Structure formats: structure tokens, C-alpha cells
């Protein structure tokens, strides 16, 4: 993981790197220029005077020899240094000195011609590419030393004449100083520009770091994971395979809720610190958000390696975490997707890893699971089913059926509204198949609202026709109850339909009360204030904590059918249900038994003091029109009817939601 970065340090580093690049480039540039100057000096010497004479015999002019040898010597050092020590301070000072020696050589071999002095200014301008005023100073010192020494001892070699050499020397020095002033200013300005650019780059680097990293743990974030995966997918070498591990901490929410966010944050940091040493340097660890982490294992062609790392992760995360004065224990669920067998693109990789993760959670958490083709087929089925559910909601293919509820005397006192769906393709789909899908897809809120409206509308009709009216029970999903406007929806529905609030009974599961404690309790209190009645559905099958019965404003317990099933033949079962009824009575709660199918069960429950009965003994769920008929008759279960009902109870129907 790259360091988060300190802007000022980064600025310094970027500046140094950039300046180093400038210096190395200039080293090479000037070395190249000197390689070109060398033959140019030789040519200049040749054109000025190719030969010297001894009588009628001409020999190569010593200036040419000097240009070849001295020019070569002056050139070779910068070339060597730019190759062996590029970018070093000593290199550029040496190169500057050599460049100025080259200028001096040109001046000498041209006999101090004024034109050759322009080479000095050209060289200084070239050296300004280093953006280092000290280089200009070095070059100037070399030039001035040469001019001073030669100017004093052999001014002809510098000025071509010794006439007025002192003044000419002064004039030369002034020109060089004048040129230096410009060049040094230029260097300083350019260097400042470079530093400002480095500052901007450093700031940009920090911004980019923040964009790609998680502020809490310093690990990469979702964006980085996407980038890494995209890169891997585009890299031919990654065709050998890599693995994506989606990690979800188990019980993190409980830790967060129990010990506070600070402990939760520290836990995430510690988890990150534990995970980092478990992966290789080339692998990527990111925090996707919340308690979700992702590990990308590069060059991981088979399951064995990914499984080994996943196992190490589980082992490490299962060790207790010491956070302040707390000892925290969490687990991890890991969904693994392998490339290229598991997916073809980034979103598919994430989706498949999530599906595998979902499987792990479904199987009890704290384990790892690989995505496979069977899972893919299941996903396809799920997707198609989701589409059908969406279509059904959109086209209004759902209907509401009503199952009667009677009191211990067999008199009809209400109905439970039950959602039914008959799909043109799939046929009759049981609620336990489509309700979870509707919850997952976010369709449960509009669907639940529609059911509530339908049920209230029907019940309001029965209310007017039957004088005293009958109660209507409507199942409420956890998603609905925790939605912020649920109470408003109930209020508006009651107002719109004209149903008296005390006739509406909302059935909640135990899990709603436990998992969504604070928010649910608040909604329940508001509903209670409206006058709406609340029931605990499927009582006895969920969490064992009974404290909510004392604390929450519920009116009725609905004992799950599983407790009713064997009360005829099992002493223990009977004893258990009697205890539950007794407890409800003690807490001044109404008790309803679900799934009552036989007269024996009815009699046992009535004897035990059960207030209300629901099940096939009365009727299966029926359409609204038939329910109207029942309302008109009210008393459903005479003794004879109970026997008939018992015979017809062979038809099973799953009633759940």
C-alpha cells in the first residue's frame, strides 16, 4: 500500500525527483553538445589556419592538433560523467567547468577574435538549463580565472591584442556578470516554478491518495479495488488467474452498537493490520466500506492458494482483539471468486464474490466459500425470479386472501390478510418464495403498503356491514417497520379507508423486535398511540429473549404452528403450549394459536385458555368475497362444523410472511 503521504515531504521528494530528471537530461544534452563542439573547434582551427610553414613545406597547424587533443580531453570528461554519474552535483559542476574550458579553447585557437567570445555566453545559457545558479557561478569563475590569468600574462590570446587589455578585461568581466545576472535570475525563477509544480503535484498526489484510500484504515478503497481489478483484467500476464476475496466481519454491528463507534473503528484498523501481513506484497487489500474488506490475490491460478490465505485470514480474525479495555471477538465470512473461471469483468467478479459470501452467511458464517457454476445457475434462476416478482408487482398480479380467526367459542373475530401470487408462467408461488425476494429487491415496501390498503379497505367494508366489525391482521416485514414513513402510511391508510385503528392488527416477527430494537420500538409506540394493535407472529421460533414482551407495547402472541402440531400426542408439547398460554395470560396478552387443524387440537387449546384460534379447522385463506359471507354468519365453528373441518384439513398450505 502506498504511504498516505505528507504534502511537504512529498513536495520535497517530487521536487528532488523532477530536478534530478532535469539535471540528468541537461547532463546528456551538454555532453552531446560538447561532442558536437569538439569537431566544430577542430574545423574552426582548420579554417582559420590549416598549416604552418617552414619555407615551402607546410605542416599541420599546431592549433588543429591542440583542438583535436585538448578539445577531446575537454569533451571526454563530461561524456564520461554524464554516463557514470548522471544528475550528481559534482557532475554538473565538472561539466560546467569543461564547457567553459571549451569556450576558452575556442577563444585561444581563434586568436582571441571577438566572435569567439560569444561562445562563452552561449555556454552560460546552455548551463542555465540546470536551473542551478551555483553552476553559473562555477562557470563564471572558470571563465574569469582563464581570462584573468591569460589577460594578465598573455592578453593577446584572449583579446587578440594587448592594447588596453586591462579595460578590455574589465569590459569582458562586466559582460559576463551582466549575462550572469540574467541567467541566475532565470535559474531562480525556473527553480521556483519547478517547486510550485512539485507543490501542485504533491497536493494532487494527496488528493489522489485520498480518492483511492480509506481515511480510517489507510487501506485502499473500492475505487482502488476497481482500478486494480481493471488493470489485472487488461494485463495479459494475469490470464494465469487471480482471486478476489470478499470479506465481511461477523458480529461487527453488535460490537459497534455495544461498545460504540470508536471501538468499532479501532477494530477495523486492527483487522486491517492483521490482514496486511497475511497477503503478499503484490496483493491488494482494500476496505470497501463498513465491515467489508476485499483482498485481490494476484497470480493465484487455483483454489488451493486462495483457500490457504482465506484460512489464515479466518484464523487471524478469530483471535480476540484488544481494544482499550475491551476484548472483542469477531469472525469473518469470505466469499471467493477466481478469475478467469469465476467471472469476466470487474462487476461480475464483485457480484460473484458477494454471492459466495452470501452463501457463507447462509451456512452459518465464519467460513469461506468459492463461487462456482452451480451458484451461477442459481443466480440466474434468482435473477429471473426477481424479474417475475418485479413484473407481478408492476402488473398487479398479487391478490389478498383472508384466513379467519375465531375465539375459543368458535366465533369469527377477524381475518389475517395473506398475500397470494399466481404467476402466468410459474403458477402459484408460495409467499415464502417471493417475500424474501421482494424484501431484497426493495419491493416489499410498496407491496406491503398495497396489502395494508387492500386489507384495511375490505375490513372497513366488513366493519360497516357487521356492526361491530372484525379485526384484520396484516403482516409487517422488518423492512417496512423500519422505513421512516411507515407510521405515516398506516395513519393515512386508516384515514383513507375509515377503518377504526383498534380493528387493525399488525403482526411483527420476533426478529424485528430484536434486530431493529430502537427504531422498531419507536414505531411501535407511535402505532400504539394511534390505537393500532400489535401482535408477535411466529412466537417461540425466533430469539429466546423475552424481555421485549415486557418492554414493548404488544397485545397478542401468535403461537407458531410448530408448537400446535403435536399437542394431541405429545405430553411435552402440550405442556409447552400450556406454559406459553399461561405466560401470555400472566402478561395480560391475548394468545392466538396458529395452524390448528383438528378438533382435538382446538379443544386442548381452548382448555388451556387460548384466546384465539387460526388454522384450517376454520378455513384456509379465502378471497375477500367469501370472507364477506363469513362475516355475515360470524359463528363459524359449531361442534358439528369442527368435525367436518377436521376432515377437510388435509389440504396443506404454507402460511407465512
Amino acid at each position, binding site marked *: 500500500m502506498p504511504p498516505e503521504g505528507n504534502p511537504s515531504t512529498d513536495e520535497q521528494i517530487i521536487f528532488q525527483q523532477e530536478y534530478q530528471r532535469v539535471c540528468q537530461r541537461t547532463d546528456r544534452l551538454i555532453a552531446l553538445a560538447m561532442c558536437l563542439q569538439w569537431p566544430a573547434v577542430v574545423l574552426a582551427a582548420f579554417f582559420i589556419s590549416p598549416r604552418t610553414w617552414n*619555407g615551402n613545406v607546410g605542416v599541420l597547424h599546431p592549433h588543429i592538433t591542440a583542438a583535436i587533443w585538448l578539445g577531446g580531453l575537454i569533451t571526454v570528461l563530461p561524456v564520461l560523467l554524464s554516463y557514470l554519474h548522471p544528475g550528481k552535483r559534482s557532475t554538473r559542476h565538472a561539466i560546467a567547468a569543461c564547457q567553459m574550458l571549451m569556450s576558452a579553447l575556442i577563444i585561444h585557437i581563434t586568436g582571441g577574435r571577438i566572435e569567439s567570445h560569444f561562445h562563452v555566453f552561449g555556454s552560460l545559457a546552455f548551463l542555465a538549463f540546470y536551473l542551478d545558479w551555483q553552476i553559473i557561478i562555477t562557470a563564471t569563475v572558470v571563465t574569469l580565472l582563464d581570462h584573468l590569468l591569460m589577460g594578465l600574462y*598573455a592578453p*593577446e590570446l584572449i583579446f587578440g591584442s594587448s592594447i588596453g587589455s586591462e579595460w578590455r578585461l574589465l569590459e569582458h568581466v562586466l559582460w559576463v556578470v551582466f549575462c550572469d545576472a540574467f541567467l541566475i535570475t532565470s535559474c531562480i525563477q525556473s527553480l521556483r516554478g519547478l517547486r510550485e509544480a512539485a507543490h501542485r503535484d504533491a497536493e494532487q498526489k494527496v488528493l489522489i491518495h485520498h480518492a483511492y484510500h480509506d481515511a480510517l484504515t489507510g487501506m485502499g478503497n473500492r475505487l482502488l479495488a476497481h482500478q486494480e481489478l481493471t488493470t489485472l483484467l487488461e494485463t495479459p500476464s494475469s490470464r494465469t488467474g487471480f482471486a478476489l476475496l470478499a470479506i465481511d466481519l461477523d458480529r461487527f454491528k453488535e460490537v459497534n452498537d455495544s461498545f460504540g463507534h470508536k471501538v468499532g473503528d479501532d477494530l477495523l484498523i486492527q483487522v486491517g493490520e492483521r490482514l496486511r501481513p497475511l497477503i503478499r506484497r503484490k496483493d491488494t487489500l482494500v476496505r470497501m466500506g463498513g465491515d467489508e474488506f476485499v483482498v485481490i490475490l494476484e497470480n493465484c491460478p487455483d483454489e488451493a492458494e486462495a483457500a490457504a490465505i482465506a484460512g489464515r485470514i479466518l484464523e487471524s480474525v478469530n483471535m480476540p482483539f484488544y481494544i482499550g479495555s475491551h476484548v472483542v471477538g469477531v469472525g469473518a465470512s469470505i466469499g471467493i471468486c477466481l478469475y478467469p473461471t469465476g467471472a469476466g469483468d470487474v462487476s461480475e467478479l464483485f457480484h460473484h464474490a458477494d454471492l459466495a459470501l452470501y452463501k457463507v452467511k447462509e451456512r452459518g458464517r465464519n467460513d469461506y466459500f468459492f463461487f462456482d457454476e452451480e451458484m451461477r445457475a442459481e443466480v440466474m434462476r434468482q435473477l429471473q425470479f426477481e424479474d417475475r416478482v418485479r413484473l407481478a408487482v408492476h402488473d398487479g398480479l398479487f391478490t389478498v386472501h383472508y384466513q379467519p380467526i375465531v375465539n375459543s367459542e368458535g366465533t369469527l373475530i377477524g381475518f389475517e390478510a395473506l398475500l397470494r401470487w399466481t404467476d402466468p408462467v410459474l403458477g402459484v408461488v408460495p409467499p415464502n418464495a417471493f417475500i424474501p425476494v421482494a424484501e431484497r429487491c426493495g419491493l416489499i415496501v410498496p407491496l406491503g403498503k398495497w396489502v395494508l390498503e387492500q386489507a384495511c379497505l375490505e375490513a372497513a367494508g366488513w366493519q360497516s356491514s357487521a356492526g361491530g366489525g372484525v379485526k384484520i391482521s396484516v403482516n409487517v416485514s422488518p423492512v417496512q417497520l423500519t422505513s421512516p414513513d411507515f407510521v405515516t402510511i398506516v395513519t393515512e391508510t386508516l384515514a383513507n379507508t375509515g377503518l377504526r385503528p383498534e380493528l387493525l392488527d399488525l403482526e411483527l416477527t420476533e426478529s424485528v423486535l430484536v434486530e431493529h430494537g430502537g427504531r422498531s420500538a419507536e414505531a411501535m409506540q407511535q402505532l400504539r398511540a394511534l390505537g393500532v394493535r400489535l401482535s408477535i407472529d411466529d412466537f417461540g421460533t425466533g430469539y429466546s429473549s423475552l424481555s421485549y414482551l415486557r418492554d414493548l407495547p404488544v397485545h397478542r402472541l401468535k403461537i407458531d404452528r410448530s408448537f400446535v402440531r403435536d399437542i394431541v400426542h405429545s405430553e411435552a408439547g402440550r405442556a409447552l403450549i400450556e406454559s406459553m398460554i399461561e405466560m401470555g395470560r400472566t402478561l395480560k396478552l391475548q394468545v392466538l394459536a396458529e395452524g390448528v387443524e383438528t378438533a382435538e387440537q382446538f379443544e386442548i387449546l381452548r382448555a388451556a385458555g387460548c384466546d384465539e384460534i387460526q388454522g384450517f379447522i376454520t378455513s384456509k385463506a379465502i378471497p375477500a368475497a367469501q370472507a364477506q359471507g363469513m362475516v355475515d354468519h360470524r359463528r363459524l365453528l359449531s361442534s358439528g362444523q369442527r368435525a367436518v373441518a377436521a376432515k377437510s384439513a388435509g389440504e396443506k398450505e404454507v402460511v407465512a410472511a
Partner: protein
Amino acid sequence: MFDQDRLRADSIRAHTQRFLPLILALWLLALVPAGRKLMAFEWTTGATGLTPTHLTGPISNGLSQNEGHSALLVVAIHPLCSCTRATLKELEDAAPNWKQPYRTTFLIYKSKPQPDTITPASDFDWHHAAYIRDAQKALNAEVVDDLNGEQAAKLGALTSGEVLLYSAPDQHGSRHLVFSGGVTAGRGMEGENTGIATLSQALNAAFTQPGAHAPVYGCGLAALSNSTPRGLAK
């Protein structure tokens, strides 16, 4: 493949870096003699022969300017020598300030064709060289083609740029040597120098210490004038 080349280059570089101090030392050592070689050419004086202190009969043959009663200035030059320009320029610049009457002769080296060599005869015409033409005008000089530098050699001038100043003839018709040597500070270098200063002083003063000498810088005139193209002296 590219990585391997790069690694090999880095290895060579690292290996060579160890020798950098040695390379630097050798470089500095080489720089000194190379610099000295350059400067040696500038400051090495040319050969000087035995210059007659008195200009008498046979020696002065061929110097028609010798006939007059003024001082005689003889300048031996090699037309192809790059230093000639500086010598003539110095004389040209100094001449307007000379108060004593004088006559000037330019002995311009000209090679004589040799039957046993492939050296061509010089076809140099001084009229085509502006710097000689200007100097000739300024000094009102007589220009004499000096075949193989023989005339200059008789006067002991073996190096181009050598200037000889003989006094005006005395009552016996004899001239004595006032100045001999070069009038430049180095090879081809114009500017103040002791040679031109001494010469100017001699041509300005009524009386001059005889036999003044200044080093002369220039190409050889007579020393190798008989050499073959391969440079072997006969």
C-alpha cells in the same frame, strides 16, 4: 531482452564508476601537457640567424632601397604564414608615428621550383593579398620576391615576421643594425609588445642604442627551405 541489456549496461556502469578517480587523475595529467603544447606554439620563438651588424656591399645586393640616405627597414615574411598579417598590421599601425625617415623592403618568401621534387613553384602574387597591399602602401615599401628566402637568410632572418632596422648610412656608406626581431607578442598576435615599441622608439629617436633585439614568432623561412616534400633536409 530489453531488461537484460539494461542490466548489463548498469553493470558496466557500476564497474566503470570504480575507476572514476583514476580517470579524473589521468584526465588532469593529460590536460597539463596538452595545454602546454597549445601555449608552446604561441610562445615558441622562431629561429634567428646571424644578422650582419653592418650592411655592406655583397650583403645588401638586391636591396634597392639601400641606395638612399634614410634608415632601412627590412621585413622578411612568408606569405602563407598566418602570423604575417599580425606583423604587417603592427608595422602599418605604428608607421604614422615614426618621425625618422626610413625606407622599407618586404622580402616575400617565394619557393623556387626544384627539378627533382614535385613541389610546384609558388604562384603567389602579393598584389592579391589585401593585408600586404595595405601595408605596402602604408610603409611605401618595395616588395621583393625572395626566392627560397635566400636574401632573408643572408640577413640572418630565418623566421617570417623578422624585422631588421638599419640606420641611415654613415659617412662611409655603411649602415649599422639598430633593431632585429619580431614585432608581435606571439604567433599571429596583434597588440602591444616590446618589439614594436623598441622599433618605434628607434625610428623616433635621434639616437638609438644599436643592436636591440626582440623575439620573433612565425613560420620558418630558410631553415627548411631546401627540404623535400617529405620534410628531409638536404
